[in-house]
């Protein structure tokens, strides 16, 4: 049985995600990546766990937030490793799940 490490974006980060970089404004994708996504993903790899990212409960997302966070993760570790070790939960917006997966698969086109 898989072990899970969880990030709940609205609870652990913010319910109002911003844009790409801190220069754009607060709660950006870059801050989310550095503060939560990257360290939790590394922890998941180390402990042979799956990283579950719960995207529900927020007011919504900008494309720049997604591409900066999940795109950066994919660029660092490669799409295959990321997809194998991450699970996205988005019951409120199924399209978002597809979009994140496509961002991970093609980080340069995201």
């Amino acid at each position, binding site marked *: 049985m898989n072990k899970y490490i969880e990030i709940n974006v609205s609870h652990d980060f913010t319910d109002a995600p911003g844009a790409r970089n801190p220069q754009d404004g607060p709660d950006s994708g870059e801050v989310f990546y550095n503060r939560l996504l990257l360290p939790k993903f590394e922890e998941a790899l180390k402990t042979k766990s799956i990283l579950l990212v719960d995207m529900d409960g927020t*007011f*919504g997302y900008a494309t720049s937030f997604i591409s900066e966070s999940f795109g950066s993760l994919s660029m660092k570790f490669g799409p295959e490793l990321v997809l194998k070790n991450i699970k996205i939960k988005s019951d409120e917006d199924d399209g978002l799940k597809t979009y994140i997966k496509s961002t991970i698969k093609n980080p340069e*086109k995201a």
Partner: protein
Amino acid sequence: MTHNENEVIFSIQAPEECSMIEYPEKAISFFNSAEKAYKQAIQLAREQKKTARIVYDLSRSVIFTETSIVILIAHIKDRNINRGLPSILTFPKDKVCEHKLRKAGIQKKVGASNIDHDDAQVQKISNLQVTNKIAKQIVIDSSIFLYKKDIRIKELYSILIELMANTNNHADSENTAIYPWWLFLFKDEKKEIIKFVFLDLGVGIFESLPVKQFIIKEPLSFLQVKTGSVKRRGEELNKIFSALISGKIKSSTGLPTRGKGLPLIAKIAKSGHFCSFKIISNDAYIDVTNNEVSAMNENFSGTLYYFELKKSIL
């Protein structure tokens, strides 16, 4: 233009119908004249060692819509445009039109320092950054206005964040945006809609660096756009806009991970939450909801987004 002993005064006559949505060319021509007048006034004032001011003469106007109100306020408030010169308004003789302007917070004497608005139905925000907290509050306020309860309208939130982020992205990648963005909300209780006007007075979508680079790379037809007829220009703008919303044109940063804002905006515009969605940028008039792009004879230096949020079945 008039002179007195100590002052240079430029008066700009507003058209009878001043609306960026219904009569865009008339409205753009008026605002372009105003911008030109600020430049001329400051030059003359320096030469003649006088003070200068601009008079917006709206006396003949019978229609002055939300979109024009926002541009008028941005002109009066933004020192990039008014160069610190004071502006004065002559209110419309038409009482309905006058009331609408006053309701939107436009006073007779307006300096660069402040514009008051006394009506809770109008909200005005201006900033240089992506302000997620403001976007969140707007979504809450909008949902309470339309649905009488707090609903997370994700489509609205995403659009607001994308618009704020796009403002910076339109600038040259080496520089941060010079012009602030302007966001106005007008709540219409009778129609149960909220009208949003988002104004970015940067270079405009079609004059932005990535679009220029795209035009250079594309076949010869794109190079002839400026010399063709309005109809032909409309076709060319349509092609460029299609390329933008399909993600074929990346942002000015040149980074491959960017340039997804407009595709999302165009997608969300058709999500059913909006009963109208228009973009006016440079010489393009875009009805996003109905996929129509046409060329105008006037050039608007910047980008104006106008959309109406309606109550929809959730």
